[in-house]
């Protein structure tokens, strides 16, 4: 297939009721690309968390639009989530200490931890007042080394 890039896009209002549609969109593409069920679940959750952040933080005060792009080449499955709402203190929340987190029973902020745990790369870029962008990558090459895991029908739900 070479380095050919295929791109899939979804432009959608920032409403929580749309999260299901967003998950179905990304899981459909991830399945088509050949990820196994476990990886599809991870990708779906990571994108949900990124979009939930946009809905609950970036557009906390008023609804806006979320742009989701999925870029697939032979090595990487890349998710790009863009919004035009308020910036998110992403860096400050870099990998919270989960033990402390649990001990303090802190609510919220778990999404960032999940995104970083579920995906191979996570980056956040913000141009305040212009746009915010979360980019997450899942490597595709691994699937070849997992003895056909991509087509494992025995995977439990």
């Amino acid at each position, binding site marked *: 297939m070479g380095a050919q890039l295929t791109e899939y896009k979804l432009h959608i209002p920032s409403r929580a009721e749309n999260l299901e549609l967003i998950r179905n969109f990304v899981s459909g593409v991830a399945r088509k690309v050949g990820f196994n069920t476990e990886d599809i679940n991870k990708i779906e959750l990571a994108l949900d*968390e990124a979009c939930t952040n946009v809905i609950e933080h970036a557009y906390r005060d008023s609804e806006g639009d979320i742009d989701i792009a999925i870029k697939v080449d032979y090595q990487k499955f890349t998710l790009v989530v863009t919004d035009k709402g308020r910036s998110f203190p992403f860096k400050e929340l870099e990998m919270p200490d989960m033990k402390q987190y649990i001990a303090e029973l802190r609510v919220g902020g778990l999404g960032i931890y999940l995104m970083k745990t579920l995906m191979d790369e996570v980056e956040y870029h913000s141009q305040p007042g212009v746009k915010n962008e979360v980019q997450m990558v899942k490597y595709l090459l691994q699937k070849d080394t997992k003895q056909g895991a991509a087509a494992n029908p025995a995977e439990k739900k």
Partner: protein
Amino acid sequence: MSAFEVRRKDVDSVSVIYLEGYLDAHTAPDFEQALQTLVDEDRIRIVVNLAHLTYISSAGLGVFMGFIEDIRNKGGDIKLAELTEKVYRVFDLLGFPVLYEILDTETDAIAKYEEG
């Protein structure tokens, strides 16, 4: 549109909440409401049966986090039962098995309260 459903059953002093479908930022308020109702009724020996929960995000996990301290301070608890492997994995990623008692069956979870 019933992609998510919350049901409740009272077994003596224990209340069982059944979650069905997906628990995300859209549906979390329904679960929150169900727990709040139990707290208001002072029924704080709670089992959440997750056998038919197909998906959970941090918004759903946050509901558990938001109630547990208050409920334990009042002498109650939230115990989890019948998690699917998919949902358990998400709980596990966030270290929930340390914080919550997770039982294989609803009966086991109810019995835990009877032990004292």
